[in-house]
C-alpha cells in the first residue's frame, strides 16, 4: 500500500456536500433554461422565474438552494491504480459529511427510525449511503456526492412485475407514478427508472439514473428511444412545474438497466426534484483533488 493521506478524502467529502447544496450543476441549469423556453403557460413561466431567481441568490450569497439538505450519498468509482483502504475511505466519508453539517452549519436531517432523535450530523447507523464500483486503468478515485432531499425521495416506487406483464406494464408504471405523485417531488426534475436486476439492484439503478447529467442518453439506442418516448409522454400530461399546470413536467427521464431473472420483470422509480443537486471530485494518489459535477 502506497502511503496515502486519508485526510484528503475527509476534506473532499465535506467540500462535496457543501458544493452540492449550493451550486447546481451546469447541465441542470441548461435543462431548466431550455424548459423555460418551451413553456407556454403563464403561471408556469412565473414558477420558472422563481427557480432562476433562487439559483441566482444561492450563487451570489453562497447559500443553500433548498433547506432540505437531505441524506448524504457518496458514489465511488475506484480506479484500478488508486491505492485504497476501504475502511479508511468509509470512515473519512462519514466524518466529512458530519463536518459539513456542523461547520457550515446546516440542518442535519438524519434521524433514528424509531425514536426519531436527530443527532444533527446528517449521518448515523447506515449513513452516509456509500456505493462503490471499480474502473480499469485509472489512477484516481471518483466520488460523486448526492444530498437527497425527501420531497422527491418519498415519491420512490418499486414493483416486481412478471414477464407476462411485458414492457407495457413498465411504461404504465412510470406514467401512473408521475400522475400520482403530482406536485410532491418538486417538478420539473429528473425521473430515474431502474429496469431489471434484483429487488435491491433495481432501486440502485433508479438512483444511478437520477445522477446522470441531463442531456446524456442511455448508450443502448432502444433504451434511449424509450427514455425519449416517456419524456414526451410525461410532458404531454399537463401537470407542469410544481404541479400547477403547464407544458413541462419533467426535465428528463433516465433509465438504467441490468439483466434480471427469467421469471422477473422489476421496475423502480426514484424521482429527483428540480434542484437536482450533485457534485463530483477526483482524488489522486498524490493528494490532489479536482472538483466538478
Amino acid at each position: 500500500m502506497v502511503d496515502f493521506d486519508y485526510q484528503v478524502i475527509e476534506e473532499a467529502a465535506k467540500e462535496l456536500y457543501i458544493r452540492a447544496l449550493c451550486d447546481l450543476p451546469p447541465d441542470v441549469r441548461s435543462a431548466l433554461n431550455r424548459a423555460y423556453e418551451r413553456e407556454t403557460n403563464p403561471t408556469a413561466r412565473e414558477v420558472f422565474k422563481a427557480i432562476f431567481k433562487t439559483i441566482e441568490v444561492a450563487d451570489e450569497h453562497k447559500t443553500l438552494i433548498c433547506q432540505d439538505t437531505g441524506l448524504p450519498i457518496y458514489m465511488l468509482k475506484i480506479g484500478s491504480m488508486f491505492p485504497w483502504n476501504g475502511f479508511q475511505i468509509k470512515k473519512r466519508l462519514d466524518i466529512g459529511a458530519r463536518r459539513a453539517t456542523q461547520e457550515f452549519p446546516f440542518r442535519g436531517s438524519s434521524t433514528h427510525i424509531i425514536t426519531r432523535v436527530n443527532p444533527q450530523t446528517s449521518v448515523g447507523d447506515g449513513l452516509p449511503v456509500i456505493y462503490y464500483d471499480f474502473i480499469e486503468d485509472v489512477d484516481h478515485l471518483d466520488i460523486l456526492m448526492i444530498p437527497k432531499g425527501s420531497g422527491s425521495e418519498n415519491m420512490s416506487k418499486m414493483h416486481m412485475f412478471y414477464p407476462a406483464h411485458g414492457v407495457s406494464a413498465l411504461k404504465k408504471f412510470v406514467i401512473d407514478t408521475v400522475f400520482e405523485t403530482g406536485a410532491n417531488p418538486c417538478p420539473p426534475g429528473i425521473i430515474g427508472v431502474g429496469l431489471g436486476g434484483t429487488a435491491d439492484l433495481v432501486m440502485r439503478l433508479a438512483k444511478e439514473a437520477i445522477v446522470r447529467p441531463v442531456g446524456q442518453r442511455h448508450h443502448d439506442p432502444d433504451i434511449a428511444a424509450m427514455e425519449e418516448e416517456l419524456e414526451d409522454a410525461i410532458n404531454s400530461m399537463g401537470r407542469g412545474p410544481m404541479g400547477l399546470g403547464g407544458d413541462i413536467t419533467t426535465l428528463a427521464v433516465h433509465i438504467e438497466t441490468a439483466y434480471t431473472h427469467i421469471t422477473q420483470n422489476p421496475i423502480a422509480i426514484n424521482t429527483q426534484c428540480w434542484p437536482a443537486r450533485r457534485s463530483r471530485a477526483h482524488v489522486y494518489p498524490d493528494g490532489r483533488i479536482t472538483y466538478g459535477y
Partner: protein
Amino acid sequence: MATHHLQTPFSDNVIRQLHAGDIVYFNGTLFGIRDLTQIYMFDQNHVPPVSLAGMPCIHTAPSLKKIGEKWEKICVGTTTSTRMDRFTPALIAQYGVKAIIGKGGLYEGSLKAMQEYAAVYLAIVGGSAALETLQIQEVEAVYWEHLHPEALYKFRVKDFGPLTVAMDSHGRHLYEEVKEETRRRLPGIYAKLGIVE
C-alpha cells in the same frame, strides 16, 4: 393571470379579488407554523400569544440561530402542506388567518373554509429556500420557543413571492383542476405508448 402586490394584513375584499392562477407578492408580516405548532394549538388547546387575524401563515421549520435575545435567519424553506390539512379550517375560522402558504395544496374541507371565511392557499416554489430566506428581512419574534424548530414565528418580509393562488375563495382548486385535466389525457397517452390496460 393577474399579478397582485399586497400588504398585510389582508382584508376580505382583497382576498376575494384573488383568483386561481394569479400571482401574488406581499410586504409585511408572515407567520411561520408547522405540524407541532398546530398540534400544540388545536390538540393541546394553547391560544397564540399574538393575533393571527388577517395574516398569512407559511408551513415551515426554519433554521435560525439565537444570538443573545435576537433570532437570526440561517435558512427558511417551505414544507408539504397536506400533512397539516386537518388544522387549516380552524386556523381560518377561529383565528382569522387569510392565507396559507405552502406546497402541494390542501383538501376539500380547507377549500370550503376558504370560501366561507375569505381565505386563499398560495403555492410557493418548492426548493426555493435561498430566495425565501433573502425575502425575509427579520425574525421579529419566536413564540413558544420550546417547540423550535416548530414554534410560532413572526417574520417581516419584503416582496415575498412569487406565490401562485392555488386555492381561491371562490371554490377553485388549481391542483385538482390540473389533475383532472391530466386524468382526461391519460387514455390518449397510454394509447400512444402502446400500453395495454
